[in-house]
């Protein structure tokens, strides 16, 4: 087995462990815990009054703009890492290139802020 595959396997097993842990514990708990759901218990909590409308109501996802911003920045962060490892070898050329790259990023951020993305109106 190649070390490469072993790494994946380790990660995969660990991730699976998280799921198994939850299931095992819930399984044990299911033996111990009472199960007696009544309508009142299963009602959605809304501060003690009957819920107004259903919980599945529309809401203005104010955060989607941040979601978009995040995708852009995160993808670009991916580019920074390979350069970061080899920053010394790439020398001044790499440095200047990265300066330009990051300044472009910052400019985009400044634009977004100026456009009022962070204002909550």
């Amino acid at each position, binding site marked *: 087995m190649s070390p490469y595959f072993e790494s994946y396997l380790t*990660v995969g097993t660990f991730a699976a462990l998280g799921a198994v842990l*939850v*299931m095992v514990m819930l399984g044990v*708990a299911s033996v111990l815990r009472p199960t007696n759901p009544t309508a009142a218990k299963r009602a959605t909590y809304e501060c003690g009054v009957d819920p107004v409308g259903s919980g599945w109501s529309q809401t203005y996802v104010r955060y989607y703009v941040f979601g978009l911003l995040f995708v852009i920045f*995160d993808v670009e962060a991916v580019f920074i890492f390979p350069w970061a490892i080899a920053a010394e070898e790439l020398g001044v050329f790499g440095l200047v290139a990265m300066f330009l790259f990051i300044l472009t990023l910052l400019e985009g*951020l400044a634009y977004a802020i100026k456009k009022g993305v962070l204002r909550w109106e």
Partner: protein
Amino acid sequence: MDVIVDLFSNFWVALLGKILLVALMIPLVGMVIGFAEMKLSAKMQNRVGPYFAGGRWGWAQLIADGVKFFQKEDLIPADADRPVFKTAPIWVLVGTVALFVVIPFGPDLIFRDLSVGIFYALAISSISTIGVLMAGWSSANKYSLMGGLRAAGQLIAYELPLVLAVVGSVILAGTMSMTGIVEAQIEAGYPYIVVQFVGFGIFMVAALAELTRIPFDMPIAESELVMGYLTEYSGFRFLFFFLAEFANMFTLSAIAVTLFLGGYWLPGLSETQLAYLGPIILIAKVFVLVFAMIWFRWTFPRFREDQLQTLAWKWLIPLALANILVTATLKVVL
């Protein structure tokens, strides 16, 4: 002895040992940190804190709590999206467990030294976000929905400073392997916090936000959203979110220690000494950071959602980018 070593050189046996170790570690870490939180907050507030359970210092308080949660009814709201509601805690915990893979406890003591270790850690830590969002959405509860959306907004906003803050250390070390970064610090003779204090600061702030702890606990925000995305959870499912939070405090602190505080290394100790003392040193350092997190939790009020976003986008991200440029310039020029 040799038989055991041989046995553990077998990948499958080793893997089994590793997951058993982690399966033991996570509840243990959760309990220790949970107990520390109870006792420390009590000290800060001139209270006694847990006292009776287990006799001395009430050490068994969290075990008692755990047993209590075992016996709690597992309620699922009638309107809820059942499969999503039920699996949300799994996703939260999966991210946490998988994070343990890359924490170096000693020179050779690491579950798996991935070559892209830090990258992996940052990527896997955002899986919890999905769990939180699932929990918030599937509850069919307005508070949960708002809490879940807040969590999503907050976690993505602070993922970036978190990712960008570590680039400085990567530049200095020239590797993304967690062990590699520690070794680079040993070689350099100083922990990277000396030059990466900005990065460390940003990382810790972002880590607090990722953990949704005060001052960034808006997704839960007890006084506003009752319990945020956790409102509808009861019993053991509820407990998993806390277990994940405490375990994540440990893992994120461990990453910070590895990247900025020299990991398992203490100046003046030889390689062999480190092999034995490494885990102790690492855990000691981790608990210093965990203490700081608990301290913050009981000292600060919480931000407002828009203030949190402003802090991330206007201050932390530009600062982190500037930190990268300065670090790289110094590294290349010097």
